[in-house]
């Protein structure tokens, strides 16, 4: 048995590794700059004298977030790109440099241009000059960081040149830097090598990379920090998971309670009227979109217009301080009734069909015939002899249902405003709070894999043939 467990565990490792890479990769592709999302509004101000502080705080934050490291062990790119682009900390600069490389394909010249740009910035953006010409030059120069096409770049350079010729103080500061900048720009255009994009380049970036550190953190329970409120992602998910688990466990328990009698009775008389109609009804039930049922429940049962305003529509209810436990229970129950109902019917159909199949198999076994031949009452035959044997596959079914139910509750939670994992996911997507989104994806994958593993192990424990073959 131990060997079997070990083998199954080892087989799941590559799956988890691949899922973690996908979650990390999607997180990296997400739009928006994580660093500015982390900085306060005040720190994000780029105007005038604040600009230097902005750059300093930006660099500090980026280093603190580990963004000064390469993203992954390997980097597959075109020969035009350098392997060290990650060392440019500012995301908008990095994106623009990468667009420049995409257009011109000559990294050494572009690097020279970038350095000339920074030197020009140091020469006359921070010089403290207040004249109109110097302000125009400073604006045009900072705009250059976001330009990659020859037309707009030329226009900005012309603006700076004109400002230099109008203001002698500015010219004294910035003339050499400006000359270097225009030279560098011309060199980029002259040395363009777009053909380098046809040549692949594979770089080894070493173990000191963002993925390595992220995965290490995940294994230690450090799932990163939310962009929105800087709370640890793990704590946020744990808070949300309480509600999701409560909802889903209630719903699944209810589904089993209803599904077992339906499945057993339709299996006892296969082809009977009850069997046929319950079969069609369950299939229809299975086809009902969950969000539609949830919406209909809110429209008709939380709305005074149709005289059926029986349930509250929002949230999970907060019992007051002085309420007795009975009042609190009533409040919670009234809030949770509709969401649980909306979650129950989906797994109900699935479970009932499984019960029917499993029960039909058990009823056709020899021991049932023996029990009948002994003259036992039919009730005893069905529930004591057949059902007990049909029960086992149903228990392992549970581990498969739970992850599916977690995903299914996304919409139900969103509609009923229940602060569970689904609600958290939607909210985080809308807020562009990517660490939370991909942590939830990782978490559900972990739960699914754990569920499958549990099912496998239960099967192997009950049926030795599985682990021996």
């Amino acid at each position, binding site marked *: 048995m131990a060997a079997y467990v070990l083998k199954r565990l080892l087989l799941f490792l590559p*799956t988890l590794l691949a899922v973690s890479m996908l979650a990390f990769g999607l997180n990296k592709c*997400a739009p928006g700059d994580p660093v500015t999302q982390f900085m306060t509004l005040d720190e994000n101000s780029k105007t005038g004298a604040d600009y230097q502080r902005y750059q300093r705080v930006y660099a500090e934050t980026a280093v603190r977030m580990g963004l000064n490291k390469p993203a992954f062990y390997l980097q597959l790119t075109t020969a035009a790109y350098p392997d060290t682009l990650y060392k440019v900390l500012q995301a908008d600069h990095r994106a623009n440099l990468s667009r420049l490389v995409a257009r011109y394909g000559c990294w050494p010249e572009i690097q020279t241009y970038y350095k000339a740009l920074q030197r020009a910035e140091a020469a006359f953006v921070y010089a403290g000059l207040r004249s109109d010409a110097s302000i125009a030059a400073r604006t045009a120069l900072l705009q250059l960081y976001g330009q990659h096409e020859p037309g707009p770049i030329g226009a900005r350079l012309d603006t700076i040149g004109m400002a230099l010729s109008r203001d002698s103080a500015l010219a004294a500061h910035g003339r050499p830097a400006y000359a270097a900048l225009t030279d560098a720009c011309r060199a980029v255009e002259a040395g363009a090598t777009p053909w380098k994009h046809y040549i692949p380049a594979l770089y080894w970036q070493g173990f000191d990379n963002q993925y390595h550190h992220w995965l290490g953190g995940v294994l230690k329970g450090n799932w990163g920090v939310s962009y929105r409120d800087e709370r640890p992602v793990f704590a946020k998910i744990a808070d949300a998971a309480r509600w999701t688990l409560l909802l889903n466990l209630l719903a699944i328990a209810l589904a089993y309670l209803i599904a077992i009698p339906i499945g057993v009775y339709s299996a006892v008389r296969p082809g009977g009227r009850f069997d046929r109609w319950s079969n*069609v009804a369950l299939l229809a039930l*299975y086809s009902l979109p*969950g969000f539609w049922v949830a919406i209909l429940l809110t429209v008709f049962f939380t709305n005074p217009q149709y005289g059926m305003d029986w349930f509250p529509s929002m949230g999970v209810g907060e019992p007051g301080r002085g309420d007795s436990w009975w009042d609190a229970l009533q409040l919670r129950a009234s809030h949770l009734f509709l969401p649980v109902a909306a979650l129950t019917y989906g797994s109900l159909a699935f479970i009932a069909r499984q019960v029917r199949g499993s029960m039909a198999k058990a009823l056709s076994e020899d021991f049932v015939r023996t029990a009948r031949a002994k003259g036992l009452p039919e009730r005893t035959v069905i529930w004591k002899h057949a059902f007990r044997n049909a029960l086992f596959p149903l228990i392992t079914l549970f581990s498969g249902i739970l992850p599916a139910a977690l995903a299914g509750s996304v919409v139900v939670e969103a509609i009923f405003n229940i602060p569970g994992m689904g609600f958290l996911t939607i909210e985080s997507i809308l807020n562009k709070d990517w660490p939370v989104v991909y942590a939830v994806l990782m978490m559900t994958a972990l739960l*699914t894999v754990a569920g499958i593993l549990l099912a496998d192990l239960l099967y192997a424990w009950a049926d030795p043939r599985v682990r021996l073959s």
Partner: protein
Amino acid sequence: MQTQEIQKKQAEDASPLRQKAMRWSMRFLYLLLFLAVFGDFIANDKPWLCRLDGAWYMPVARELLVKAGVARWPANLVNLDWHAQRYDLSIWPPIRYAAGTIDLKNSNYVSPVAPQQVEHWRFRHWLGADRLGRDTAAGLVAGARTAVWVGLVAMSIAGFIGLLLGSLAGFFGDRGLTVSRAGLLGGLAGLLAGGFYGFVARPLLWQQNATWAVLSGCALLAVFIIGLAWLAHNMLGRLPWWRRRATLPIDTLVMRLVEIIDAMPGLLLLLAVMAIVSRPSIGIVVVVIGLIGWLGVARFVRAELLRIRHFEYIDAARVAGLSEWRVLWRHALPNALRPVVTTLTFGAAAAILLESYLSFLGIGLPPEIVTWGGQIQAVRSNINAWWLAIFPGLAIFFTVASLNLLGEGLLERQKQ
């Protein structure tokens, strides 16, 4: 003995109800297909045929030609408010609004049973209208087109991938597929080169929209893997060491891939992917649904081929000297195709449901695409607009139920 009797009885008893259910499902799906194809003629804010100021026009047909870029509107008809004209004669579509028509007189959630501001009862919004006065019935017709599109295209992609990987895994198993070492090396090189030219270098050299980028990237990847493997096998494969065959555990590889994608719930994965697409479109939604929806097909084809490959006629074909690939494509796979249709119907139901979840949540689809899920979303801002919940919801329900009943019926038929 007893089991067989039970099953036989079951099949006989169940069949009339099943037959009826299947027949009605088929009818509904034909209706849906009809709406998808001829939707412009059924819900449109222009007449089919009209006589205006002494001239005859066919505005609906002309609109289609204009959309196709073949014709142009005459100067006097550009931006014409077709509802406001006095016609000598006009023949209208049954629904006199297009999905995007904004009816300002009937804006702010007009109920189907409430009085409406219309000139004639024929211009009523029979199923109500939404906040902007867009007709619900016209939205249903446009939504049918989206649903059919999602079902057909997503399942074509899923069917292709599932058939390919599932048949390889099932027919060859872990020991059956051998390639020369040269071919293996070429295939690996093709994987790297195809990944590079398909996904790293191509966006730099050749800009295009996201849907075609994903599809052409995958196609390039496949071409590179097969091409380089073939090339290496024929060139390098002449050396003795490189000619020796290596076993490719294709079954394990495919099943691991299935397991990886299966570990993430479809809706969450779709949400996570669509959330970062900068310019969402229906095409990219469909492609992503197809790329994660092939698991069922692959599993089914694999199981089917595991069974088929032990049949005698397969051995006979082998003994006759046919190559393994020919046995697979010409003898084994055609017999697995019919059951695959069943999984494709279930898959289409799941795809349509998944898309409606997505557009209900409002993530991943541009607002101008009309979908049933998107129509239902409007209920969240006005809980009294029951018609926006009922009718599109029924459309989704009937579509998904028809597909499921059809699949169920086909499955039952195969068992007999």
